[in-house]
């Protein structure tokens, strides 16, 4: 179904689709109140609030891959889950093809449009269900794939699409390797023919050579079915390869948003620069000797006033700590959240 809807299939990741935004997030925030025991509850003090995602606005076009990178505590996973419907946003809107997501209908209807792939291949499949059962369930629950025999054929077709031999369909997950299990998770997501897939660190738990196989698979599927991806990861090299645009997150906010190559060649935010220079480059002739980023992530329950990165930034000034910077345009298509972005570049 989605193959028929696609208007442009970018054969190369450099061709950016022209259609209107498929998904748009406006000022999305998600907070969690900390768990408290009876004593703390009785004390009358309000629960402290963890702002996992703070005022994030992003858009994804049909067939586009948006990479979201950042380190622990940046909120990228929480953002992904808000988009996939696992969390209810505390504030902000999620728009699908221009209309609020709630207008699509209930959770079931939304799941036909937006799907998700998770990080841990060892817990993303029900250990007691065979591959056939897992995939059939997805089809049956949404009235897809026809009746009994047709459904079995559709399951085999899905397995082939993700590069697995159909004879594996009667196996249980424990008989498969991590890479194979991830493929099954992808097949399960594809069964619903979604237009957007949120992939939350889908290759982080896999070996390097298997990672490459799965990344190739993503790109193949993207090209074949025109599915848009939100690719959440911490490995920048992988994200660069697969994304059209990349958003860098720190402490719940987007600090930089740009086309993939632009981000890598000319990073403008101090955190992005630090992140890129921290990546161990596989070339012994080029050893990075400068001191990297110092310090630790601030307590997310108590974020710094002003710029979140001010506690670790080497270009910090007094004004940085006083005023919270906004996401401004550096170049067309390149947004940066730093007051000093022009001075330091």
């Amino acid at each position, binding site marked *: 179904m989605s193959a028929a809807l696609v208007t442009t299939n970018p054969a190369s*990741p450099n061709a950016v689709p022209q259609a209107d935004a498929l998904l748009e997030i406006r000022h999305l925030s998600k907070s969690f109140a900390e768990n408290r025991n009876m004593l703390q509850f009785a004390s009358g003090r309000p629960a402290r609030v963890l702002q996992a995602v703070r005022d994030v606005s992003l858009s994804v076009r049909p067939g586009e891959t948006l990479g979201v990178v950042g380190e622990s505590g940046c909120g990228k996973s929480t953002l992904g889950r808000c988009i996939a419907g696992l969390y209810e946003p505390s504030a902000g809107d999620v728009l699908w093809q221009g209309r609020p997501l709630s207008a699509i209908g209930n959770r079931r209807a939304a799941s036909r449009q937006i799907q998700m792939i998770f990080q841990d291949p060892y817990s993303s499949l029900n250990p007691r269900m065979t591959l056939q059962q897992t995939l059939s369930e997805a089809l049956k629950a949404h009235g897809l794939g026809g009746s009994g025999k047709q459904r079995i054929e559709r399951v085999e077709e899905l397995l082939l699409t993700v590069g697995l031999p159909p004879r594996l369909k009667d196996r249980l997950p424990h008989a498969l390797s991590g890479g194979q299990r991830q493929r099954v998770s992808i097949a399960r997501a594809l069964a619903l023919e979604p237009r957007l897939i949120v992939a939350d660190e889908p290759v982080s738990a896999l070996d390097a050579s298997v990672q490459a196989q799965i990344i190739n698979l993503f790109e193949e599927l993207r090209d074949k079915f025109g599915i848009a991806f939100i690719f959440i990861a911490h490995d920048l090299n992988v994200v660069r390869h697969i994304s059209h645009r990349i958003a860098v997150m720190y402490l719940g906010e987007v600090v930089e948003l740009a086309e993939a190559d632009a981000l890598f060649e000319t990073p403008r935010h101090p955190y992005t620069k630090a992140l890129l220079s921290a990546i161990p480059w596989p070339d012994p002739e080029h050893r990075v000797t400068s001191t990297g980023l110092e310090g630790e992530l601030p307590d997310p329950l108590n974020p710094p006033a002003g710029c979140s990165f001010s506690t670790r930034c080497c270009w910090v000034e007094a004004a940085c700590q006083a005023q919270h910077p906004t996401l401004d345009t550096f170049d067309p298509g390149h947004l940066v959240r730093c007051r000093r972005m022009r001075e330091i570049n």
Partner: protein
Amino acid sequence: MSTATSLMTVDGLVTRFNGHGAAVTAVDGVSFDIRPGEIFGLVGESGCGKSATCRSLIRLFGGAPAEVAGGSILFDGLDLATLNDRRMEDIRGARIAMIFQDPMTALNPTMSIGEQICEGLRRHRGLGRRAAREEAVALLASVGVTSPGSRLNAYPHQFSGGMRQRVLIAIALACRPKLLIADEPTTALDVTIQDQILKLILRLRDDSGMSVLLVTHDLGVVAQTCDRVAVMYAGRIAEMGETRQIFRRPAHPYTRALLDALPAHAGRGTKLKPIGGEPPNLAAPPVGCRFHPRCAHAIDRCRQSLPDLHAVEPGHESACLRVEELGL
């Protein structure tokens, strides 16, 4: 090839795991040497035997049914493979220290970190309580922990992952070991914290002259930190040499494939080049060269004999039979 100045010489190490009846030879004839003051990398994918190798050196299997079944481990004039448990304890922590991958579980949650550091200081260096605490403060400072005096009484759960790894390094260094074994010390950490920890290890090596055996799966880490490196596959070493040599002229098809598969080496728009197939089952490894089922250059000879390492250029060895033929 061991030289007279090697700190540790491992020769023909064989380690077996006996579980559920089936015996798995996780390390099958591994030989290498570590020189004083060098950072030696052991790189490979999961299941290649790199973790088993470093645990075999100090016989720390964590209760797993494993044993060193062959070979010798010469360190400071002793063969660690034949040492009894009591003497091994004297060496572990004092002359050879180890840090692990998961800083969350490597620290005892019910002891303050001061107590954990002092434990080693008092056992191996015989320091009294006051002296041990002072030394602990100095150690924490040397690994970059701010306000070390007040942190001594803190508990592990109050520290972040990066801080805990620093504490673990402090504990490891407490007794001024000659060799630090680091088993994937940064795999569980964020990239900027990884950078900090690796630079810390480099600085500590420069300051104290200790050697480091660094186990990792990340070729980038190898390139940035290691002086020499051994590439392991399926329990054996496929290639070994100076880091520069390995990257400039990879002399084994597996090493080549690993480097080719890196996203950093792929241009945008081109497909990544994964290594086809799956790593072998070590309970029943392939006959002959272990890599032949996945090797594009395998011939009959590869399927018959298990190749040993041989020199390709000075200081650089490869276990591929066809190195010269293929012009690798």
